[in-house]
């Protein structure tokens, strides 16, 4: 227990109370400051961090409950104890409802006061210790900028770390927003090529001609507008890593060109004849099922095998829900810095909604939701209402929140299951689908709890 670190603010209009209480607590080694009213108290709360506040109930101007209410908004983690000369059940209930730690009647027994303060200090020490342990754990769960405690993700990290040491081509497979580029960057940073460049290119964003020029560069005059020789991404990534995002979307011609580079480690610029040799490690990524694309004749089988040397599957967020609290914690810390707004965390209800959301947009969607919530949150804790989610079971509100089709489906199924009391047969009848299909959807959306509700 660290008494010097414990800062106590006493708020009481009676000077004699302030003096005697601060004298008593200072002898316990605490740092004590006294103020005569609510306005002075809130000014100190707005400017400095406090561990404990002892607030008198009856004061002229702002009373103890108003001070408590405002303090909860400014510093939610400060422990507030309301002091009063007259105990009434109503005020005690109001104080506790507003988040007071305790309610004590003056004069206190020395033992009562000492034990209460010691208990608060011990609890705060535990909270600090817990935060420290979480920080240590977070370090354990980290692979560069990626963080996860999920067993499957830990295996991904292990595989990525081993793969980083080799020079083999890596194919990262995963839905949009799962962090494919972050993983590619982490692999590069862990690889012997870390001193070389990391060059990323999104293959789906460019037309075939532009992508060709972007990848391989062009000679002067090779096409209208090619006023000078231009180096491509392959050359820019020499001795480093080239990250080809959305590689499943490239045209058949470029698939062939890419295959040649992978085989020969050399290429010619657009409009050129000279062969340019490069030493590049390729990390490709796609959200498409390349096996299916190969079977459908949309993707070259030989290129697929060239790229698929070390496949790494990034699971979607809905399959690693155990990671959501950790990710929320990490993202809030980042957003708090970016927005220069102290956000301490999310409420229990908000976390429950976040953990149970379908997250079709994965971590990118989670970040966007938290970013928006951090902006609209009025206090330093993000509440359920700040998330902009439509609460299941409260009826559809079209136009209120823009959702993916999957999310609409998930919410509708939850709503129907709730209305049938979890009866799947009845719900399937209402939805006009067979029971097997509904079971599959329940599984897909992780709706077991609703189903058994």
């Amino acid at each position, binding site marked *: 227990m660290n008494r010097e670190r414990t800062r106590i603010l006493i708020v009481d209009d009676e000077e004699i109370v302030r003096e*005697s*209480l601060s004298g008593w607590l200072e002898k316990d080694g605490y740092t004590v400051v006294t103020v005569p009213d609510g306005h002075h108290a809130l000014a100190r709360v707005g400017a400095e961090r406090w561990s404990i506040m002892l607030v008198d109930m009856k004061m002229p101007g702002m009373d103890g409950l108003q001070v408590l209410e405002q303090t909860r908004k400014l510093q939610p983690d400060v422990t507030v104890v309301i002091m009063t000369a007259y105990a009434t059940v109503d005020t005690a209930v109001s104080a506790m409802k507003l988040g007071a730690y305790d309610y004590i009647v003056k*004069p206190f027994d*020395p033992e009562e006061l000492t034990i209460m303060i010691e208990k608060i200090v011990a609890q705060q020490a535990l909270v600090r210790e817990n935060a420290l342990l979480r920080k240590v754990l977070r370090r354990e769960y980290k692979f560069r900028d990626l963080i996860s405690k999920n067993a499957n993700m830990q295996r991904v990290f292990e595989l990525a770390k081993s793969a980083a040491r080799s020079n083999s081509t890596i194919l990262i497979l995963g839905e949009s927003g799962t962090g494919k580029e972050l993983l590619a960057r982490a692999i590069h940073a862990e690889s012997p090529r870390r001193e070389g460049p990391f060059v990323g290119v999104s293959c789906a964003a460019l037309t075939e001609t532009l992508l060709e020029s972007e990848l391989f560069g062009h000679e002067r005059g090779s096409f209208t507008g090619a006023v000078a020789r231009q180096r491509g991404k392959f050359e820019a990534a020499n001795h480093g890593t080239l990250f080809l995002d959305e590689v499943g979307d490239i045209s058949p011609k470029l698939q062939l060109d890419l295959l040649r580079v992978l085989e020969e480690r050399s290429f010619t610029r657009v409009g050129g004849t000279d062969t340019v040799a490069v030493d590049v490690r390729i990390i490709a990524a796609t959200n498409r099922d390349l096996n299916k694309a190969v079977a459908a004749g949309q993707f070259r089988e030989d290129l697929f095998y060239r790229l698929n040397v070390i496949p790494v599957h990034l699971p979607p967020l809905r399959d690693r829900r155990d990671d959501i609290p950790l990710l929320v914690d990490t993202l809030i810390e980042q957003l708090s810095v970016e927005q220069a707004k102290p956000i301490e965390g999310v409420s229990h209800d908000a976390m429950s909604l976040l953990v149970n959301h379908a997250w079709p947009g994965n971590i990118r969607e989670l970040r966007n939701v938290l970013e928006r919530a951090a902006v609209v949150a009025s206090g330093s804790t993000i509440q359920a209402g700040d998330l902009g989610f439509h609460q299941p079971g409260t009826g559809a509100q079209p136009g209120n929140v823009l959702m993916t089709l999957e999310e609409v489906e998930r919410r509708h199924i939850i709503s129907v299951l709730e209305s049938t009391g979890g009866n799947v047969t009845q719900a399937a009848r209402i939805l006009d689908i067979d029971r097997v299909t509904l079971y599959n959807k329940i599984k897909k959306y992780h709706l077991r709890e609703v189903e058994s509700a």
Partner: protein
Amino acid sequence: MSSIHVWWVGVDAPDEPLLDGVTTEIARVFEVPVTRYHSGERPTDTLDVRRQQHHSTAILRWLKLHRPHDARKLLALTDVDLFIPVLTFVYGEALLDGPCAVVSTARLGPMAPRHEDAPRARARLAKECVHELGHTFGLVHCAAAACVMARSINLAAVDGKQATFCSDCRLFYLERLTQQGHDHE
């Protein structure tokens, strides 16, 4: 020049052997000269009629103005029950790092020499006197339950501690003594 003065400011006549015992104990722990101060003056306007207790902070204020001029530290002993406004009672009070302390015999048990509990009550008084004087040297409460500077929240806590400083508090006391320019004899 004497360092610590002990002054009886109680209502009843002073119990001289009791005060001599306290003086000896203080001299042993603080390792400085301790003198008895005799005066018929008593603190005024310290009684709270409603509570029928005396306000210890008011006593300290009065002592600060009425202390003997050569007293670096003054320990006042009284037989009246003491309180501070936020607490139901206190055994004593001191000005942290200041010149005065006051301790009451009222709640420490029977002090009459023939009473069977008197040795324990007198031992409690000695401990509380050392404790409050310790505060005047800047010592705060100690986490070691056996140290005389451990909190005195009830009689069990007082009984559980010794009449001496733990090694950390003693070291702190000696440092403060040097800083405050006392002669460590």
